[in-house]
């Protein structure tokens, strides 16, 4: 029989203690049995909180010199911490305090400019400091950046200072915000805001400069701007599918997706599928700039919106692409009076139908789309615009005739299937658009009502137009939106991209994508160059040589040119630009001319 004798008990206790101690020592806290795994560096960037630098605005220091007061005021203007400009106003006094309106717009000076030459004039009442600088750009209240680097406008900024008590304060300041290019680079972000077009089937991009708001994420800022609707330049040219009065409640990251929570007025878009899809595309395309690869979820008052609103991915909305043409596109060119498709493997075949036959002599062809049987518009031998499809047995139909004695510009297609052209009558300009044989007159701004238009090109997305206009003092390149309110077509306010200069000839313009045009021009010295301009902010790229080129057509990064070769005299050629080697490459020889990409 087992008894509770002492030794046995002690032995049992000792065994138990040993087991415990051994077990405790044997199993380490960090497991040693793991196998090697790919060590991905933990991303240190939160998509909702991108890294950026802010200027810290500081209040005027006691006893500061006038120069420091002005510097402090300029630093406070450049600071985004203070949306109401409370700190900046502490530098002001009197008239300046009452009259200074930071909302009225931003003048951007070239970084080096204003600092270099401050002039000080001291008199009994106070002090005046004048800074001199080159204006680099302006930004209006709607975020439209207007690049002025090329114009080289120089301006003085005059700050008047007086003493308030023992302290210097600014008594007169230039209107609006004065920022340097460095400030803009630091405190503003350049974004494309996308709005659905009038039909709601495509997106139209608007390029804006948006000040960073540190109290919210970039996603929040962009959605807030979208909710404000399109700016003045596009109002009427695009639709606004976001219900009015909607506000964004919050933005939250949820794993790989970002949740946008809207107020209840957003709920109505759930009822109309096409509207919902347009909203989703708009958000996806806009937010893809700051949160690429992440999906978006729309919520209304914390409740997910059914259907598409649950997981919006940019990849799901390719058909909304505002650039319209993507990837390698078939190009066309004229040779021997007929239209050829550029296809080197097939020997650049002649297209089918009327454009491929010598039934009628035509020039300046334009192709209506990427499909094989797209329509071709061209100027006929009588100067009218004829249209024929590239299918068998097609024939030329006269769509836009024009009045006697007038000249029509080469036709241009938009994605809605309309042909555009401008008619120059002596002392009057008419712009026509046609879906068929009955052209419709387009209203134009008064400042070009009597100008002469050499080229008119409609953007592929049909939202903007680019024209080479000569109002009497030389050709200049002007662009503007096409406003489509209830069927009435109107060209909105035109903006000059390339100003008229003496001796400068603008030869051709072509839409590269929805926001950029390629301009071919010849300077007074006779150098033919081409440059890419952004129609939204006016920025331009460095001009590249384009000797002997007379026409251009662009699609994305591809650029085709038609012109005479320098080597063998008059024989026309079609060239393409090789961006890597920075040189022109011959695509088609022996009289090939007028290369054209679909649309534009």
């Amino acid at each position: 029989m087992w008894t509770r004798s002492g030794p046995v008990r002690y032995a049992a206790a000792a065994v138990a203690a040993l087991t415990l101690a051994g077990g405790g020592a044997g199993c380490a806290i960090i497991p040693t049995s793991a196998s090697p795994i790919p060590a991905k560096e933990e991303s240190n960037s939160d998509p909702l909180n991108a890294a950026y630098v802010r200027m810290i605005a500081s209040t005027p220091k006691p006893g500061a010199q006038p120069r420091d007061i002005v510097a402090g005021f300029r630093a406070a203007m450049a600071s985004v911490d203070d949306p109401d400009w409370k700190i900046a106003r502490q530098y002001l006094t009197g008239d300046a305090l009452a009259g200074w309106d930071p909302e009225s717009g931003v003048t951007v000076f070239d970084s080096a400019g204003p600092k270099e030459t401050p002039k000080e004039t001291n008199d009994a009442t106070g002090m005046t400091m004048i800074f001199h600088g080159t204006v680099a750009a302006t930004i209006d209240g709607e975020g439209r950046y207007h690049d002025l680097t090329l114009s080289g406008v120089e301006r003085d900024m005059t700050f008047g200072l007086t003493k308030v008590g023992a302290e210097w304060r600014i008594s007169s300041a230039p209107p609006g915000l004065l920022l340097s290019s460095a400030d803009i680079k630091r405190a503003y972000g350049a974004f494309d805001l996308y709005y659905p077009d009038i039909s709601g089937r495509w997106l139209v991009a608007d390029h804006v400069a948006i000040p960073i708001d540190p109290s919210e994420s970039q996603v929040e800022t962009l959605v807030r701007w979208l909710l404000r609707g399109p700016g003045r330049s596009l109002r009427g040219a695009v639709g606004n599918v976001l219900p009015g009065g909607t506000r964004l409640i919050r933005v939250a990251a949820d794993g790989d997706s970002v949740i946008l929570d809207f107020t209840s007025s957003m709920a109505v878009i759930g009822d109309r599928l096409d509207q919902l899809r347009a909203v989703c595309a708009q958000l996806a395309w806009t937010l893809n700039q700051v949160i690429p690869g992440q999906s978006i979820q729309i919520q209304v008052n914390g409740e997910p919106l059914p259907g598409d609103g649950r997981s919006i991915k940019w990849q799901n909305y390719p058909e909304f692409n505002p650039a319209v043409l993507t990837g390698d596109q078939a190009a066309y060119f004229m040779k021997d009076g007929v239209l050829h498709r550029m296809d080197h493997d097939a020997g650049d075949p002649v297209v089918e139908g009327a454009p491929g036959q010598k039934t009628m002599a035509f020039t300046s062809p334009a192709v209506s789309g990427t499909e094989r049987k797209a329509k071709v518009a061209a100027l006929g031998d009588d100067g009218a615009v004829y249209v024929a499809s590239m299918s068998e047995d097609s024939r030329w139909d006269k769509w836009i005739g024009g009045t006697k004695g007038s000249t029509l510009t080469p036709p241009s297609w938009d994605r809605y299937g309309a042909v555009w052209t401008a008619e120059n009558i002596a002392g009057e300009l008419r712009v026509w658009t046609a879906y068929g044989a009955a052209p419709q007159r387009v209203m134009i701004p008064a400042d070009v009502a009597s100008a002469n238009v050499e080229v008119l090109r409609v953007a592929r997305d049909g939202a903007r137009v680019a024209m080479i206009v000569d109002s009497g003092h030389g050709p200049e390149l002007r662009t503007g939106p096409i406003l489509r309110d209830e069927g009435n077509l109107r060209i909105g306010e035109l903006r000059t991209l390339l100003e008229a200069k003496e001796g400068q000839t603008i030869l051709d313009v072509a839409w590269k994508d929805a926001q950029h045009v390629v301009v071919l021009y010849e300077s007074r010295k006779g150098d033919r160059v081409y440059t890419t301009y952004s129609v939204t902010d006016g920025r331009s790229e460095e001009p590249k040589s384009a000797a002997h080129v007379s026409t251009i057509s662009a699609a994305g990064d591809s650029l085709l040119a038609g012109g005479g070769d320098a080597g063998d005299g008059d024989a026309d050629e079609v060239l393409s630009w090789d961006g890597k080697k920075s040189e022109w490459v011959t695509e088609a020889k022996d009289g090939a001319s007028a290369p054209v990409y679909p649309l534009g």
Partner: protein
Amino acid sequence: MPAPAKKPARRSPRQIARGLRRRARRAVRRARGVWRRSLQLQVVTSTLVISMTVVVVLGVFLMQSIVKSMVDGRRNVAVAEAGANVTTIAGYLENPPLAGETTKQQASGDGAATSSDNPVDVVARSLAERAGSRYSVVIRNEMAVGEDRATGNIDWRSVPEKMRDKVRKLGPLDPPYAQVGVPLHYLGKAPEIGMVVGAKVVSYNGTVYEIYHLFPLGEEERTLSSIRQLLIVVGAVLVLLLAAIASLVTRQVVTPVRLARQAAERLAAGRLEERLKVRGEDDLARLATSFNEMASNLAVKIHQLEELSQVQRQFVSDVSHELRTPLTTVRMAADLLYESRDDFEPAARRSAELMQNQLERFESMLADLLEISRYDAGAATLDLDPVDMRDVVLSAIGDSEALAEQHATRFELRLPSEPCMAEVDSRRVERILRNLLFNAIEHGEGKDIVVTLGGDRDAVAVAVRDHGVGLKAGEENLVFDRFWRADPSRARTIGGTGLGLAISREDALLHGGWLQAWGAPGEGTQFRLSLPRQAGTELKGSPLPLVPPEVEMRRSWRGHVPALPAGMGDGGVFDVD
């Protein structure tokens, strides 16, 4: 027309408060009672308290060490990172910009830094890129205007002023300062606890930059918070588990003890056959064995004593009976001598008279002894009849009249005007009253004797009050003992056998009533007989006070004792049963 029904009176707040207080006090009292009685509860409570203390102490210690190691680790990493950043930017700021570098940067394109950029912008941008969203950087420059930068949405006021003072005084080779537990404020975001590392960089042209790295510790805070929650939950579970274990273990011990207590109670109540079950061989089993042994020994002893007592009672009864026969003979002879006493010479006559007297006493003593032994044997029975108690009282008074006259004592009767019916054995009640009256006459020193009869719905009572020497404290119960004398030296003047009050009490008890005495030196004595109106019902109170009302009144005037309501409270003071 009937009067409108009265609304039920609503209780005032004060009444409600009082009620609540009363209820709370009752609950506390009950809880205290339960606590005092339950060993299990006491053990469980002390286990709870002790284990809670231990768990709290251990938990706090554990939490502190976890927090310390976590924060230390984080701070080391943060300081290292900040140090590396500061070294890099110091390398940039301490050297004047080179001309060659400038052109190279300009050529590299739009996004890169250009020569016109403020160096602090370049530095801040590189720090912002390194920091991402992990931490924020604030650069301050007290000397120049427009040289202050912050990254991300940090509020630059998060840097404590004390820290700035210290950082400004840093020497060129001093290590940076770090401060943990600084609330970091953000623009458009809730504040978060964090850590600040501050360093100083002097640029080539003597400009002093204060570089602050602000690391949020929200993640650590959340981790620690969940660890703390876990610790609290585990601690609570542990304490409850320990309490449950203590309760279980105590029950194993307490249950047999409780059984033993219950057995002892039953044993005390007279159930001598009660025994405990013995299971196993442990201490409790041995306790049960000892208890059982004790119980059986006790039972044997009690049985022996009972037998002895029985024998004694039988002896007394037998002796009384046996004495009666010779006493009758002696009595007859004595009667003869007494009747012819006039023929005797004076000494012999006196002897005959004395013998006659003592024989009478002897006879009544024998009668009393027989009566007592009848009670002891449990042979006494009641002959119940509904009678008017006034008749019983008057009859007893009539019997005592002669003796009263001898002592020149007068009776004062206080009888109710209506009949006072009760179901009693009138012979026995009369005997009780007679005994009380004789007793009062004997000790009344010739003063008036007050006899009061009272009744209520359930009971009747007779109080006999004399104004004699009274009783000393503690004698109220002794008076009912057999053969007890207030003053042993005093001779018996009337035929008291010393058994009268004992028999009276037995009679009262047989009726289910009380016989109680009150007395105070110099105040006299009062005996109160209380009987239920209905035989067999339990007596709950007496219609008459035990302490005479005039005495009670005098006492309350003096303020010694607060007045007791008549018939209440005193019932228990001198209760003989």
